[in-house]
């Protein structure tokens, strides 16, 4: 067992998959000579050369389109978006093209493409650079969407993503790259469509993915200490496909749930999770499903306002208390 930072775990997965399969190559802005904005691809240009670690111009639609074309020919591109906010430029290539060809061709073509990069707010990146994109993509049939929260999942799910024959949106979070965790030395895969219980509890289920899992764990700890409440934390980690069984099993045990996500609250992916719980666990619920999301405003620059926008443990504790009091 080695302790790896999230970024190192991603890097290890890239190396193993590139060594395993000659068809796997990387493409993105400043990923090669400059070593990658978040250092996920550090040293890979030196290791694999310009053929397999392709530095691109600032041309996101072109990068995704070219990768999709290469994928149609059987290559397995892994595209880095410097931030997921820039994938907005490539939405047409992703949604209208990569996500559609399998269906439109009646199954003749597939697009084994991974688009990975940081999604969500970092530290004062302001309104154009702080988007959470997973909900946008999870809306689109034809795309798989994952959002791992730990180094071990980052490693195992990136390997799965690269081996998947469909376009996969792999969202990281700028706040996660530095976090450390155990990653088994032996090679392993983490399958899509399997949620995981990060902390067991009996009174309330917190349901989250990506960095918000850590916020929920902090909130759970506090609820335990301050209120003597036993909180379970479910890490969804794979949005499409989603493992609703694990989420429902938790809710049926605790009878209360709060869904937490960083994206804008209105219309975010958490709303989808809430609906699924409501639809399937209505009789098991002792309170309405609670929801904590980002404020419905473009991300402001001033640090005090920015912190106000991003859900934190205080917000989760507060909503949890309301949900715990709520009785139908």
């Amino acid at each position, binding site marked *: 067992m080695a302790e790896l930072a999230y970024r190192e775990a991603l890097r290890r997965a890239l190396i193993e998959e590139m060594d395993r399969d000659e068809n796997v190559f990387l493409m993105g802005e400043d990923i090669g*000579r400059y070593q990658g904005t978040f250092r996920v691809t550090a040293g890979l240009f030196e290791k694999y050369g310009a053929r397999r670690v392709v530095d691109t*111009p600032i041309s996101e*639609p072109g990068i995704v389109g070219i990768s999709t074309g290469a994928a149609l020919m059987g290559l397995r591109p892994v595209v880095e978006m410097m931030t997921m906010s820039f994938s907005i430029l490539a939405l047409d290539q992703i949604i209208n093209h990569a996500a559609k060809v399998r269906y439109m061709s009646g199954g003749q073509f597939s697009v084994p493409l991974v688009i990975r990069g940081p999604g969500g707010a970092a530290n004062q990146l302001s309104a154009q650079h702080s988007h959470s994109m997973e909900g946008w993509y999870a809306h689109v049939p034809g795309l798989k969407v994952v959002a791992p929260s730990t180094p071990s999942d980052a490693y195992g799910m990136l390997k799965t993503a690269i081996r998947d024959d469909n376009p996969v949106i792999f969202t990281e979070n700028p706040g996660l790259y530095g976090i450390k965790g155990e990653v088994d030395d032996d090679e392993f895969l983490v399958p899509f469509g399997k949620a995981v219980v990060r902390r067991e509890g009996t009174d309330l289920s917190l349901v989250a993915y990506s960095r918000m899992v850590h916020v929920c764990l902090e909130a759970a700890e506090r609820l335990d200490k301050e209120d003597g409440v036993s909180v379970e934390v479910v890490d969804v980690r794979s949005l499409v496909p989603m493992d609703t069984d694990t989420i429902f099993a938790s809710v049926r045990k605790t009878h209360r749930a709060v869904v937490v996500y960083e994206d804008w609250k209105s219309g975010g992916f958490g709303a989808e999770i809430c609906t699924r719980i409501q639809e399937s666990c209505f009789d098991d619920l002792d309170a309405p499903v609670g929801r904590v*999301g980002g404020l419905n405003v473009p991300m402001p620059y001033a640090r005090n306002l920015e912190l106000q926008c991003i859900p934190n443990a205080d917000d989760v504790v507060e909503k949890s208390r309301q949900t715990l009091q709520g009785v139908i």
Partner: protein
Amino acid sequence: MRRNGKGASFLSTKESKKSKSKPSASNGKPTRKELEQLVEDLRWMYRIREFEDQSMRAFRNGLAGGYLHVYTGMEAVAIGWIGEKREDDPVIAAYRDHAYPMLMGVSPYEVMCEIMGRRDGTSKGKGGSMHLYSAEKHFFGGWGIVGGHTAMGAGLAFAIKYRGEDRVALCFYGDGAANAGIVYEAMNMASLWDLPVVFLIENNQVAMGTRLEYHAADPELHKRAVGFGIEHERVDGMDVIQVRKDAARILDYVRKNQRPYVVEVMTYRFAGHGAADHDQSLYRSKEEVEQAKKRDPILLLSQYLLKHGAIEESDLEQMQKEAEKEMAEVYEKASAAPKPDPHEVYEDVYTDMQPEEGH
């Protein structure tokens, strides 16, 4: 193979000879008025450079966050072009944007407040370093998505033409931005519809950590105008005297002919890409930077002014000191300015309503 990664050719003074303007005033005799103007330009160069040093200090001290990109080394471009444009000619630019609004009349204090996320900032602290705006001074931002603003640049010109106004829109963008597809949609329509816009490429030879020769199939970016039938050229951006000449000539052309123009202004950034650029050795050598600094706009202009007796050595020191003092005071004042109130987070999302509140 052109991708040799060797020292960039642009650094040679020969570049400016390609300009269609008469050669730099260094040959002819400048008038007194011209000299006075150039002394003012020199003062501005010191002020901008000092301002940028203070903005970097704000970042280091945790008073600014996010991405912060300084204009150090590129001063002559904005000074020359904004100096030659008319007051109501609108300007739009990318995120390396501290200099433009100040040159257009926004106070350094307001800009520093924005960089520090304070309520007195140009965007009340909500935009930050990359997103400065001044409707009053005709500065349309301040944009962070590389290349994204260039079509809006043509859109400003569309409105000018639509209303029959005698104005020219100025759209600044980088060499890296020149690879965004939207730029070419904008150029095509600007030419098709005869829009009075200058597409001004500030070619500082590098996009973040990727050198020009690795990102552009043909590093002479101005040539991309050919396919749209737009006049184009490459000019020098380090000698402000030359920059002013080219700017005056091109702005005049656009105004008279009501046609777009693509001008590639060759410049160099002395600082890293952004405040967090950790290792410049990944994309350039110290020697290359030293070489470029031989054409530091401050150096070129002060030599010229000394030669023509417009200033003395002691004036240089004086100007530098004044700028230092002014910008240090700006820093102090801005760092004591109030932060936005929590309720302001919901303001200015819409013109006429507020979004639903809460998490």
